[in-house]
Every structure is written in structure tokens, then in C-alpha cells.
């Protein structure tokens, strides 16, 4: 491949690619992101190839292994183009039927379609499924259409046209102005306006400047950056290159965690091909602008997602945040002005340049423009990645797109913004998601994690869980975070174990204040949020744990007892047999009793007791009733009339 030397050559080349592609040729796309690889996408792909060969269709049908489509709950997903017939949860054994029926005969295989759980209606096209219908997939939408390892696929969907436009028709000031005007805010956590950050670096006097992609996604349950990097790496490279041009940087870094091997692989392939094509390297598209990109793999520390810790790690030192009060866009990597934005932020840049700041700003709210990808996980029917315009109400994301809470349970709270975000309760479900809106509610946007919790979730335990994570991930440099979190974790653990004392809430509040005000970095400052937000909305649960030794959600093991209601027990022997601790006494026709001494509170009896009996119950905060007298335990069968 010879380098493409001008925007005109690029358009010529693009035409060449498109002319060789027949839009009517059958194409099977299969999502092959990390999530679907784990559920067997690799085996499905092998089977497709084998089956096409067997049926003599290898030359007539294309296979495209794409990145993540987002609907991970139902993966792996196959879309048969051009008809766009969509099949879900595909297993290798489904493949022969798909090829003989759908590819050859153009017939729909009903059993593989998505069934709407509300209407029981089968849906043929991906775009009509409620999960997708209510989304606005500007950044994430291309993932399902392209093979991330193929630069030609990216060019076929207009890839690198924004770079060509920026380098040929716009000055670097124009590019900066456009991004500033779009009011794009950083998608990684703080929500700082990207344009202003860029401007600071651009105006800094140093000759050498750096641009960096933060792909050290570390929030539990969040994987939008991974999916973008795996599924559409060129969009990030294109955004980064445009940013470098606006700022006057000639060297960029992608800091990606080692735990993302597919992302590392795909982005390395993308860099290599982009260099071959002339989108990276010297004299890009004949513009005279030089830019190179280097991939750096992180070693797995959560704190390295923090900007100064990331830069320290890039320099080859221990990833700890810097204590200095100087912005890294003025003095960053190797003390040079450095712009660090996260994956999703960079991926927005080509859209803004191609379609304009005004187009971009039509989506979203006054303070938060564009769309945001959320990682919807937890007690939610449709687990997956969703992209919606800023300003979408939380309840639309959770109920319309997410399909609500499974197993007939009730919604309790949603945790947004990663571990140092906060929990938002039911009464705030109308909240429109945006940077400032979420902060006002005591949480934050963070990088877009959304963990849904149902009524069985104990909010004190949730706080304990996240503080545990943060304690474990504290870099240990400053006292308020290292020691403060250690103590917060101890106190919260005690509360969930029924050892809470009067004054614990006040002590936790004091520790929270110390971390919030005095910790060294943003992660330490925000670390008390899981406690503060759960206290704000669920104070009664803290008080119940401490004062009454009661867990209102009936979840904290050490505060609950399992009790069999003698009036409801039918002596069916199911729980008795299943109890792994042999803690249930009884027999055929003899009402069962839980021996509280032996019970390990695993909950098996509660789960296996037939719902029509509902005899096993959980008790918290009150004594377990004494067992009924032996003679009353015998169930005498009623004589049949």
C-alpha cells in the first residue's frame, strides 16, 4: 500500500473501496468484542466459515467480525445484511440453519429473533428492538458495521474524512475553535471542557507538547472505552490526530490497561495500517503535519486513570498522583504541556469536525452537549452499553432501554460515576443525566458506569463494597485516603456485621470530610462519595443497622436469620434436603425447623421453598420465634372425603 498524499487521493481511494463493495452481497456480521468472545463468538465464527464452505457459499457471502454492539446480555449477535435480520444468543449449532434458511432462502428463523418481553412480539431488525430504539448511537453506532482490524472498513464509512477536512480546509485555530464551540466536555470523569484544556496546551510556550488517550478504564462494571477501542480504534486515532493538529503536538500516547488484550491488539493494528496509509507519520495527507502514536500498556492500577498518576506511570515511574498545583495541560508528561482525554472524548472529535459544532450542540442539555455512552449493569434486564443524548432521564435509560428490573423486583437505586460516584434513589429517577445534574444529586458522571440495584440490595453494604474497592486501590501516598479509607472500611464493615456503635455515622462523616478536603488527588477527594450519597438518601438504613441491628433489605448475613413459618410449612423436605449445613430438622409430615446454631445463612432454603408455600422467611432486628412444641410438629393428613 502506498501512502495517500492528499485529501483528493483519499476520496479517490475511498471511491475505489466502495466500488468494489456490492451492497446487495450477503454479509454476516458477528459481534466479537471481549464480552461476546467470552460467550462463544469465536466458535460461532469458525462454524460460519466451515458451513459456508460446506454449502459452497464461501465466495458469495462475506463474514465480518465486528466490535461490540452493546446488547451484551443477548450476545453473540448475528446480523444478516443487507436485510439486517438480527439473531441473538447464537450458538455454533444455530449456524447451519441460519445459512440454509436466511442466507440461501432469505427466510427468517423465528426462534433466533429477539422477543419483546412486554408484547411477546418477535422483532426482525436490530434498530426496532426497544434496547436500541431509544438510543442515539453517534459515537458507538459504527461498531456494528465495521471489522476493527480493517482500515478499509473504516474508510468505507467515511473514516478519516474529518482528518482530511481539518488538515486541508481548516487552520489549527479553526479546529480548536470548533471544538470549543461544541462545548465537548471530557467523558472520563471530571467533565472539563476539552476545548479549554486544548487551548491551555496550545498556548503554553514549550515547543514539545503531547496528546494522550486515557484508556485505563478501571471502574467495576464499566467497559465502554474497551468496546470503542476494540470496535472502532481508527475513530480514536483520527480524533487524537485532529487534536494534535489543533494543539501543535507531534507525539501521542495511548495508555491502555494490560487487561484489555483485544483493545491493545486492535489499536496496534490500527496504528500500523494508519501509518501505511499515511494517516499517521510524516507529512500526513500531504499537509506537512507530522504525528506519531505510541501504545503504552498499564500495569493494572486503578489510580493510573487519574491524570497525573497516568503521566507518572507513562514516564516509567510508580503510578502515583503528583502533588503539584499546576495543570498537566501546562506541565504534564515529562513536564511538557500535555492534553489527556479519555477514549470516548477523542472519539467525539471527528464527528464534531465533520458535522460541525452546531450539529453536535443540538444534542444534550445546556451544560452537557452531545451523547454519552453508559455501561448499564447490575440488577437490570438488558445489561449492555447504551448511548443516549445528554439530558435523557435516568428512568428512560433504566426502564425503556434497560428493560427494568428482572425477577419482578423493585428498583431501589442506581450507582453512577464508578466507585467514587454516588447512589441515586427512586425519587430522583426523573433526573436528566448530565455532568452538573449528577453532581448536584451527590453523584457524578464519571466515565459513565451505571449499576442498578433492586430492593434486595443493602445500601450500607453497597457503601462498604465500594469503599473496600477504593481502599484496595488507594495508591497509599496521602494520609486522608490511605488511612481514612482504611478506617471508613472498618467502620462500615462493623455496621454491616451488627457491630455498629452510636457515633459511627458522625465519625464516618468526619473521615469523609478529611478525605474530601485534604486528599492529594481527585480519586481520594471523591472516595467518600459512596458513603456520603448513601447516607444522604438512605440514612434510615444506617440507623437501622446501628440502633436496631436490623438490615432493612434483609441482605446483611450477620443481621438476618432464616425462619420457617410453622403455619406455612408443608414438611415437603425440599429445604431439608438441600441445606448444605444440615441445619434443618424435620421429616416427612414433620414441620421443619432451622437450627439457628448450625445455620450458615447461605439462603438455600429461602430459594428452594416453593413459592406456593412461602414458608421460609428472613427475619432481621427481632428475635427468632421459639420452635413450636414437638407434638405440634406432626402434620396429620386430612382424610379424603
Amino acid at each position, binding site marked *: 500500500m502506498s501512502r495517500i498524499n492528499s485529501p483528493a487521493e483519499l476520496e479517490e481511494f475511498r471511491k475505489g473501496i466502495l466500488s468494489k463493495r456490492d451492497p446487495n452481497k450477503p454479509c454476516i456480521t458477528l459481534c466479537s468484542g471481549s464480552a461476546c468472545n467470552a460467550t462463544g463468538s469465536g466458535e460461532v465464527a469458525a462454524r460460519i466459515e466451515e458451513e459456508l464452505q460446506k454449502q459452497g457459499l464461501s465466495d458469495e457471502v462475506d463474514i465480518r467480525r465486528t466490535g461490540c454492539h452493546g446488547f451484551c446480555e443477548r450476545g453473540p449477535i448475528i446480523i444478516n445484511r443487507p436485510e439486517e435480520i438480527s439473531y441473538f444468543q447464537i450458538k455454533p449449532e444455530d449456524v447451519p440453519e441460519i445459512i440454509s434458511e436466511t442466507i440461501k432462502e432469505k427466510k427468517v428463523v423465528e426462534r433466533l429473533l429477539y422477543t419483546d418481553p412486554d408484547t411477546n412480539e418477535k422483532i426482525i431488525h436490530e434498530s426496532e428492538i426497544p434496547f436500541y430504539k431509544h438510543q442515539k448511537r453517534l459515537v458507538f453506532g459504527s461498531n456494528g458495521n465495521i471489522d476493527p482490524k480493517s482500515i478499509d472498513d473504516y474508510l468505507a464509512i467515511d473514516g478519516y474524512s474529518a482528518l482530511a477536512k481539518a488538515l486541508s480546509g481548516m487552520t489549527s485555530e479553526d479546529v480548536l475553535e470548533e471544538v470549543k464551540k461544541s462545548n465537548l466536555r471530557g467523558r472520563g470523569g471530571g467533565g472539563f471542557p476539552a476545548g479549554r484544556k486544548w487551548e491551555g496546551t496550545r498556548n503554553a510556550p514549550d515547543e514539545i507538547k503531547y496528546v494522550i488517550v486515557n484508556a485505563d478504564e478501571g471502574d467495576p462494571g464499566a467497559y465502554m472505552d474497551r468496546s470503542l477501542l476494540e470496535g472502532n480504534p481508527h475513530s480514536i486515532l483520527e480524533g487524537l490526530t485532529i487534536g494534535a493538529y489543533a494543539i501543535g503536538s507531534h507525539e501521542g500516547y495511548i495508555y491502555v490497561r494490560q487487561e484489555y488484550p483485544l483493545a491493545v491488539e486492535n489499536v496496534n493494528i490500527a496504528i500500523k495500517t494508519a501509518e501505511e496509509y499515511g494517516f499517521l507519520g510524516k507529512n500526513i495527507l500531504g499537509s506537512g503535519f507530522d504525528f506519531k502514536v505510541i501504545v503504552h500498556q498499564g500495569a493494572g492500577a486503578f489510580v493510573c486513570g487519574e491524570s497525573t498518576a497516568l503521566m507518572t506511570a507513562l514516564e516509567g515511574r510508580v503510578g502515583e498522583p503528583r502533588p503539584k498545583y499546576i495543570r498537566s495541560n501546562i506541565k504534564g508528561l515529562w513536564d511538557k504541556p500535555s492534553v489527556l482525554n479519555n477514549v470516548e472524548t477523542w472519539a467525539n472529535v471527528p464527528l464534531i469536525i465533520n458535522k460541525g459544532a452546531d450539529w453536535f450542540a443540538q444534542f444534550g442539555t445546556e451544560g452537557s452537549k452531545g451523547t454519552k455512552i453508559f455501561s448499564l449493569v447490575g440488577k437490570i434486564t438488558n445489561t449492555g452499553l447504551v448511548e443516549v443524548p445528554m439530558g435523557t432521564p435516568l428512568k428512560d435509560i433504566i426502564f425503556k432501554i434497560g428493560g427494568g428490573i428482572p425477577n419482578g423486583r423493585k428498583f431501589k437505586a442506581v450507582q453512577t460515576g464508578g466507585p467514587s460516584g454516588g447512589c441515586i434513589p427512586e425519587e430522583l429517577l426523573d433526573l436528566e443525566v448530565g455532568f452538573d445534574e449528577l453532581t448536584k444529586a451527590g453523584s457524578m458522571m464519571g466515565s459513565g458506569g451505571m449499576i442498578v440495584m433492586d430492593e434486595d440490595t443493602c445500601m450500607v453494604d453497597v457503601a462498604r463494597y465500594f469503599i473496600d474497592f477504593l481502599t484496595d486501590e488507594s495508591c497509599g501516598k496521602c494520609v486522608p485516603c490511605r488511612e*481514612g*479509607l482504611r478506617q471508613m472500611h472498618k467502620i462500615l464493615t462493623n455496621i454491616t456485621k451488627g457491630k455498629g456503635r452510636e457515633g459511627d455515622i458522625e465519625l464516618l462523616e468526619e473521615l469523609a470530610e*478529611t478525605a474530601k478536603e485534604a486528599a492529594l488527588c481527585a480519586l481520594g477527594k471523591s472516595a467518600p462519595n459512596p458513603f456520603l450519597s448513601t447516607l444522604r438518601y438512605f440514612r434510615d438504613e444506617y440507623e437501622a443497622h446501628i440502633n436496631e441491628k436490623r438490615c432493612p433489605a434483609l441482605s446483611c448475613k450477620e443481621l438476618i436469620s432464616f425462619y420457617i413459618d410453622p403455619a406455612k410449612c408443608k414438611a415437603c423436605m425440599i429445604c431439608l434436603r438441600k441445606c448444605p449445613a444440615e441445619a434443618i430438622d424435620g421429616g416427612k409430615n414433620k414441620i421443619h425447623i432451622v437450627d439457628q446454631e448450625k445455620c450458615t445463612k447461605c439462603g438455600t432454603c429461602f430459594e428452594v421453598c416453593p413459592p406456593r408455600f412461602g414458608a421460609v422467611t428472613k427475619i432481621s432486628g427481632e428475635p427468632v420465634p421459639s420452635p413450636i412444641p414437638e407434638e405440634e410438629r406432626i402434620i396429620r393428613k386430612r382424610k379424603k372425603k
Partner: protein
Amino acid sequence: MSEILLQIDGKEVKAREGMTILEAARSAGISIPTLCYHEKLEPYGGCRLCIVEVEERGWKKLVVSCVYLAEENLVVTTRSDKIDRIRKMIIELLMAHAPDSVELQNLAQEYGADRDRFEKEASFCIHCGLCVRYCAEVKKKNAVGFVDRGTRKEISFIPEIAAKECWDCKECFPLCPTSALQAAFVLTKALYSPPPSSEPESEE
């Protein structure tokens, strides 16, 4: 070097450009407590005890004075209810590790900190990093370093280097505010040296 005029606790203070608030305050005889600060070392910003409030163009914020640079017209407050409350908490947290440290006890008295507010921890070390940084920055030996991270982080001598360098130096010993360092050193020495019966007096 141009001169900067700032205000600390209502007092006009002169500072040179590049000076931190802490240096400016100390040069004017205003005391700010520190644990991880040392004039020969790069500011570390770890203990956060030197936290102060600065006011700039009407905005008030808490910063640590060992890192924050003095600026023209900056208004600094070194004591307030909030600052004292935070310092008290920091001292109490550290006293879970080193309740008998004289330095911490003096601070505890000043800020009314309760040495027994938190359950005691196993390690004396308060992670001020003075030994580690002094050995690296001043002595350029790196005989002592941090191992692991976060709440599991500890100081540790590197036996191969310590055996050669430490015995005649020990300059880090008096820096340690809690005496954890000596314990760690002695321990490492004990672990590293062969049993006395097999090889007596083999000290290098």
C-alpha cells in the same frame, strides 16, 4: 529573583519567586505543622498536615502549603476550625500506627487529638517517606524503598544495597518520626545476616 508580597494570617510576608507558602511562612516566623516535609527534599505532599486555606480573587480553597507556590497578593489562613479539624483527624489516623511517637504526641496536644480514637494498627510506619526520599534524593543510594501499595504499602531496605551502604550512614534514622525505620532496618539486617555461629563478625 523578583519579590512577592503575600498575606499570611493577616501579616504581610515577603517571599522569593518559586517559594512555597510553607517556606514563606516559616521565613516569617509563622509555624505550620509538617511531617513529610524536609528542606533538602522535593515536596511530597503526603501527610497533608500542612494544609492551609488560600484566597485568590475571592475564591477560597484548601491547599497543602508545602507544594503550593507563593503568589502575589495571595491571602493565606493557617488556622481555622476546619483546618484544625482536618489536622486533628490526620494526627488521630496516624496515631493508630504510632501512638508513642513524641512528634505525634506534641501535635496531638496542640490540636486536641485523641491518641486512641482508632484501633491500633500493626505497623508503626506513617509513610512520610522521609527515609526513602532522603536515601534516593540526597544520598542517591536507594537502599530503602516502598514495597506494595495502598494500605499494604511498607518501607523496606534492599538487603543487597543496605548491607553495603547503611551501616556507616544511618542518616535516615533521626529523620523518622516514629522509629519504625530502625525496626525495619534491624529486621532486614537480622534476616539478611547469616547466623552468628557460622560466620562471626562479617560486617562489611
